[in-house]
Every structure is written in C-alpha cells, then in structure tokens.
C-alpha cells in the first residue's frame, strides 16, 4: 500500500516538474507580448505568469491548513495536524515568493520596490501571520496541545485570505486587477499560458505537500521507535 502511494507521489512529482518546465517556456517565450510601449514593461509583464500562480498556491495552501485545522478539531486525528503543518509551510514559502517577485515587478512598473497600499501590506501581514503559525508550533512541547493551538490559529489566520483576495476590489489600490478589469488585464491569447502555469503550480504544490506529509510521517516513525527503546 505504502509502495503504491510512493509510486503515485513519484509520478505526480515527475508530471508536475515537467509541467513547470513547460510553464517556464510558455511564460518566457511562448506567451504573446503585452501591448505595452516600453520593452522593460513588456518583459516585466511576463513575471505575472509565475507571480499570480505563486499567490494562488499560497492561498490554496492556507485554505488546506484551515480545512485540516477544522478536521483536527473535529477528530483529534494526527493526520490532519500533519496536513495543516505541511500546507502552512509550503504556503508561507510561496507567499515569500509572491512578495519578492511582486516587488521586483513593481520596480519597472511603478518605479518603486514597495508601496504601502492595501494589497501589498495585507500580503506582508499574511506572510508574517503564517510565519508566526510555524513559530508557534515550535514553542509548544505537548503534541496534543500544539496541534490544538495550531488548528485554532490556522483557522483564525485564514481570515486574511479572503480579505487579501478582495482587497484590490474593495479599495483603490495600486495593484492591478487581472480579472474583471475594464481596462488592462490579460488578453485571450495570454490566457492559455496563464492557466497552464496555474495548473502546473497547483500540481507542483500537491507534489510538495505529498513529500512534506511523508517527511512528517517519517518523523513520527522515528519518535515511535525512540519511545519503544
């Protein structure tokens, strides 16, 4: 059974890695150029093919942490705590990627690395909130207490996701609106590349989650052997 699961994970990893390579090609060369005057702007626009899917994975990962937190509080089953931890760790890493790639995009697009507008500030807060989640886990010794605290924290922290998502619709932020915008946004020709990148990133997240869960189970195995000695 375990071998079958491992084979599935290896297959998923290989598929997602191949799709990430194809996504890289599409993002850098395959997708049509944006209709912008400056060459710097046109090149910088290609960042969005990876920037938005990275943000999507961050949001998805935090939703999984939220759902796993609910699962843990209902069942007290260790497997939910493992999923929540694994997903939060991946989500936090991807949110760091969103902040950095967004900042690099902002420099040629806005002329500054950072502005304290609602979307950017909320993204930074969200990153810090989940970094806090990971730090909190390290401070509680008792596994049951740690899992319970983390589940409650993970559920509460998820509030930041919908607020961050709708921030550019609620407030007049400097951050562009990619979908539902009257002006700007993605042309239909760019949509294929964009959605391909989105699927590739989602599969990549699933593969990383599988490996992270496997790692945590191995840690449990080590702890169990130690207890038996």
């Amino acid at each position, binding site marked *: 059974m375990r071998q079958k699961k491992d084979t599935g994970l290896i297959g998923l990893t290989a598929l997602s890695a191949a799709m990430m390579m194809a996504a890289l090609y599409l993002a850098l060369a395959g997708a049509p150029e944006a209709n912008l005057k400056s060459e710097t702007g046109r090149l910088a626009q290609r960042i969005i093919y990876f920037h938005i899917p990275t943000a999507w994975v961050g949001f998805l990962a935090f939703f999984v942490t939220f759902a796993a937190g609910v699962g843990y509080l209902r069942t007290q089953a260790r497997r939910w705590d493992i999923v929540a931890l694994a997903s939060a760790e991946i989500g936090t890493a991807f949110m760091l990627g969103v902040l*950095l790639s967004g900042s*690099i995009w902002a420099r040629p697009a806005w002329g500054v690395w950072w502005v304290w507008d609602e979307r950017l500030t909320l993204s930074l807060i969200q990153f810090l909130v989940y970094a806090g989640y990971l730090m909190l886990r390290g401070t509680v010794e008792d596994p049951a207490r740690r899992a319970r605290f983390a589940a409650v924290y993970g559920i509460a922290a998820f509030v930041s996701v919908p607020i961050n998502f709708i921030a550019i619709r609620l407030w007049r932020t400097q951050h562009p609106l990619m979908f539902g915008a009257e002006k700007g946004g993605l042309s239909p020709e760019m949509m294929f590349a964009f959605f391909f990148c989105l699927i590739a990133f989602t599969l990549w997240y699933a593969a990383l989650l599988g*490996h992270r869960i496997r*790692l945590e189970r191995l840690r449990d195995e*080590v702890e169990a*052997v130690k207890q038996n*000695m």
Partner: protein
Amino acid sequence: MGYLVAAYAVLWAISFGLVLSLVVRQRRLEAELEVLRQAMEEKSSVP
C-alpha cells in the same frame, strides 16, 4: 530583462530551497531511523 531574470530566479530559488530542505530533512530522519533500528536489534539480540 534584469527584472524578469531576477523575479524568476527568486521564485525558482524558493522552490528549489523548499525541495532541498525536504530532501535534507528526509535523509537525516532516514539515517536516524536506521541507527535506532540497529540499536534495537542489538538490544534484542543481547541475552
């Protein structure tokens, strides 16, 4: 061009960093598990 390269380099570095951290932690745990199992076997073989 520099900004594009920098953005993609950052995103790939984070992704590879994550994978590398998983691989390193997994190898450490596998090695630890092996040592523990050997110790248990030795312990059980002692009359």
